[in-house]
């Protein structure tokens, strides 16, 4: 039972991961590289080292500082810097990471978490997948983004990297807690008070997210990018993650339909469902 759930989750993850990898290869790779370059030039001009237009940088400041530091650029955030690997490697590994990201989320959220939580998630088969996707999005991206919104490349952030890593991880935990509480509140109230009250109660735990958001240290940012491009990059990030979760849920729901269709007990289980709701 667990194995079949894991398989289905990982399959959904492969579908969504491949699509996300394609988005990375076709959109994110060229766009981020372009923005990096633009941010780099902007940074140089800001620092008063405007190059004369040959495009050849003399490794005076940014590049060497980065190399000598062993690549540690925590203090100044991820400001403009020379990459220690070629753009081919960055593009390839990024696409691969995107595919792995989908598989990881598929396996963990739609494999293991769905196996454990399936009885507690409200709704029918397909709805459950989409609800879990919404919860996954809030946990993995939505909640952390309240404190650390996605940033375009070449942006200097005031908080050191370690602090941001802790904040990001902490907000993931708070997001997961809010989602679990929400599901718990809905299931507890649905039987006693009806659906309306249950939905209202399910919305309340998300107020929890406001508490750490209000108390998180401010992370001021500086960007040399044109605001339109910066907005577009952030939009791509949000769209990409939303798409990933929708695809995960869609693939997961479809796969479950398939496995149900294969089984002859389909009709029987449907009937028992109906009788339960009639009671």
């Amino acid at each position, binding site marked *: 039972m667990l194995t079949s759930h894991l398989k289905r989750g990982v399959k959904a993850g492969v579908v969504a991961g491949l699509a996300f990898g394609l988005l990375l290869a076709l959109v994110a790779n060229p766009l981020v590289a372009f923005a990096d370059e633009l941010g780099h030039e902007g940074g140089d001009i800001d620092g008063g080292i405007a190059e004369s237009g040959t495009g050849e940088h003399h490794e005076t400041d940014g590049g060497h500082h980065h190399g000598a530091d062993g690549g540690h650029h925590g203090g100044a955030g991820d400001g403009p810097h020379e990459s220690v690997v070629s753009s081919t490697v960055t593009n390839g590994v990024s696409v691969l990471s995107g595919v792995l990201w989908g598989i990881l989320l598929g396996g963990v959220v739609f494999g293991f978490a769905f196996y454990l939580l399936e009885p507690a998630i409200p709704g029918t088969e397909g709805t459950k997948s989409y609800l879990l996707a919404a919860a996954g999005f809030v946990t993995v991206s939505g909640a952390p983004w309240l404190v650390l919104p996605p940033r375009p490349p070449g942006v200097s952030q005031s908080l050191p990297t370690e602090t941001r*890593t802790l904040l990001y991880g902490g907000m993931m935990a708070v997001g997961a807690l809010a989602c679990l509480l929400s599901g718990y509140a809905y299931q507890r109230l649905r039987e006693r008070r009806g659906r309306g009250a249950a939905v209202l109660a399910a919305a309340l735990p998300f107020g929890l997210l406001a508490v750490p958001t209000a108390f998180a240290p401010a992370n001021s940012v500086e960007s040399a990018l044109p605001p339109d491009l910066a907005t577009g990059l952030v939009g791509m990030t949000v769209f990409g993650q939303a798409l990933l979760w929708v695809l995960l849920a869609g693939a997961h729901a479809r796969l479950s339909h398939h496995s149900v269709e294969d089984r002859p007990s389909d009709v029987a289980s449907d009937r028992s469902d109906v009788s339960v709701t009639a009671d």
Partner: protein
Amino acid sequence: MPATTDTVHGRIEGARIELTPTQAAVGFALVAALGFALLFVQEPMLHDSMHNFRHAAGITCH
């Protein structure tokens, strides 16, 4: 079968029966390692290789 796995508690019990502690530990370690590598590792070579992915995924921890 459905009656015994109708609750989250039942599912946890089911996972305990189906997985040996070693399998569970190995699985958890693999997932944790992959998740940590994708999201948080700052080692310059890894970080720069996954640069575009992290921006596309909205992880600004770098």
